[in-house]
């Protein structure tokens, strides 16, 4: 395997979003998502675009940008000064755009080769209802971002 984009063992049980699931549930969840890859510089979310999906980072890193600038995503919510955020293994993004059915307020741009899981926007609600443990983990994660952006980063 060439350097820079190793074959990734998904090992979803180690991701915060899925760590409460049983092995049987993990098998099922693996099939709910599609696998995706991205190269450095590739945009995964596009500011102002609709129809996105919900992504979970399995490997690699990405920048979260608004108006082309690196920002802390909580800054748009509680008015804190912008701080750079890097999305990495275990991070997720795209859920707000999907759940609000609104254009994305941000770009997410790959910094390194990335391996991701993605689920279509229109399938996210059904997926979360089928897996309430994942919904709760997502709720906790997003609440933590609001309460403690430093820790989240």
């Amino acid at each position, binding site marked *: 395997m060439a350097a820079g984009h190793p074959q990734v063992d998904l090992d979803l049980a180690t991701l915060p979003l899925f760590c409460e699931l049983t092995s049987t549930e993990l*098998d*099922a969840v693996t099939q709910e998502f599609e696998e995706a*890859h991205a190269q450095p510089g590739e945009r995964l979310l596009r500011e102002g675009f609709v129809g996105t999906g919900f992504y979970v980072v399995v490997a690699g890193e990405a920048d979260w940008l608004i108006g082309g600038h690196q920002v802390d995503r909580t800054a748009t919510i509680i008015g804190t000064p912008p701080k750079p955020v890097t999305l990495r293994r275990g991070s997720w993004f795209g859920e707000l755009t999907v759940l609000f059915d609104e254009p994305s307020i941000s770009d997410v741009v790959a910094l390194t080769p990335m391996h991701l899981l993605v689920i*279509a*926007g229109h399938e996210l609600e059904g997926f979360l209802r089928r897996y309430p443990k994942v919904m709760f983990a997502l709720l906790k994660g997003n609440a933590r971002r609001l309460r403690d952006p430093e820790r989240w980063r």
Partner: protein
Amino acid sequence: MSDERPCPPGEYPVVIVGSGPGGLQLSYDLRRLKIKHALISKDIGPAGMFRRFPMFGRLITCSRPHAIVECGCPAYFRYDWNSLVANQTEHQALVTEFMDGDNYFPSRAEMEASITAFAERGGVEVRYECEWTSTRREDDGSFVLGTSDGEYRAKVLVFAVGMIEPWRPPTPGIEEVPHYVDIAATGIDYLKGKKVFIIGKRNSAFEIANGLLPHACQLILGSPHGVRPSIATGFPTAPRARYVQPLEDARFGGGTFVVDVALERIERTPDGYIVHADGTTGLGKVAFEVDEVIACTGFATGLGDLRKLGVETFYKDRLPTQTPYWESTSAAGIYFAGAATQGQAGMRKYGWPSHSASVSGFRFNAKVQAIEIARAHFGYEPPRRRIDPAKAVGYLLDQATSEAAIWSQHSNLARQLSFDEAGAHDEGISVLLDFVDSSGPDAIAITVETNLSGDLQPCAYVRRDGNVREQVFGPAWMNDFRTDENRARLAELLRGLGQNVPAAS
């Protein structure tokens, strides 16, 4: 006796491996662009895959003998998902020409006949029975392709080798059971009167289950995930309507079971198999005692030794990672055509995958890719047809309503017009992913997309002063988007592009 086969070993600008529809379409288009190349194939004739698959004889993609547009016109290919696309009428070999009229899904033989005729009429030369065996890169960046006939040297390699290598998940015991591709060779006679467990719930699993309904005494389809057929998802990659009879049989209690289980292991017994599983929807552990098990667990691209050259993969090592123009992201100069192009998933708008898994989508990929290979490696300048700016709005809405490349690749391919002081230029069919993420002159790219409600709608991507913005148009009755409202909105979007472009339609 001399060997009169074309494309003998030697040096070529491009070498294509594979004589399926992907390789033939690309060769046809490279030939039109005067890019010299060799096309080699281990098969004895075109479309070798269709001699074996689909197992039960008919494709899952349709070709309408009667459409609301003239057979063979550019818009017709919206209604014909299988024919390769010729640039000249005399090269056309529409699948319907070879169909008997009983079904709008062509048989394998009908598909093979159409592809063979396309190759003959289009002058596509193939060296058959020439098997690719090795690949290496020289210090100057060129490639050496080892084959059963000798070595080929090329600046660019294109692999159109299909996606038919059997793939199995790492379930203990699964290596002991036949895969879908094995059943194609053995036939199904040995399954008559048997209890059969089919691992998987995608098209190959439902195809086999559907075919076994009159033969097996009991069918169990099992995988962790519930069934979401194409008529529910709208995705052509989901189990297709013509194969879901077993689902109805299961709902009616007719001897078929479709179960949501995670497989733990498969145990071989003197009388058959025990499939040990755990229900993913709450019923707990279960052991299915059956006579036979078939793994319909998917397929992989046959990449040979390409990983050693740096070709990276994803999707559990089943697909190469690719750029917008289907070049390896990690091994420059190595391209993919045909079904492997689904490794470039496109924009994923509303979760829609590309249509690159089937001929309907990848035939248009090949046409775009031929131009890109010619441009990027051989200095070809694609022609830019001048468009009367006053007619741009009408042209774009015509394209959204009827252009087959756009309809066959929702959100992935688009008609692009650019604008400058000289006016408007038709840049041809573009890869949308590349358009939205690259810079360039003022331009517009229009495509169609399927929204969250399942409705088709046009979407325009407008690049102005280097920034690309998305403009979604609403659905329209009968998918005819040439409405007064759309004309007015589009005219407004075009206003001022490339400076003073008239906005009238």
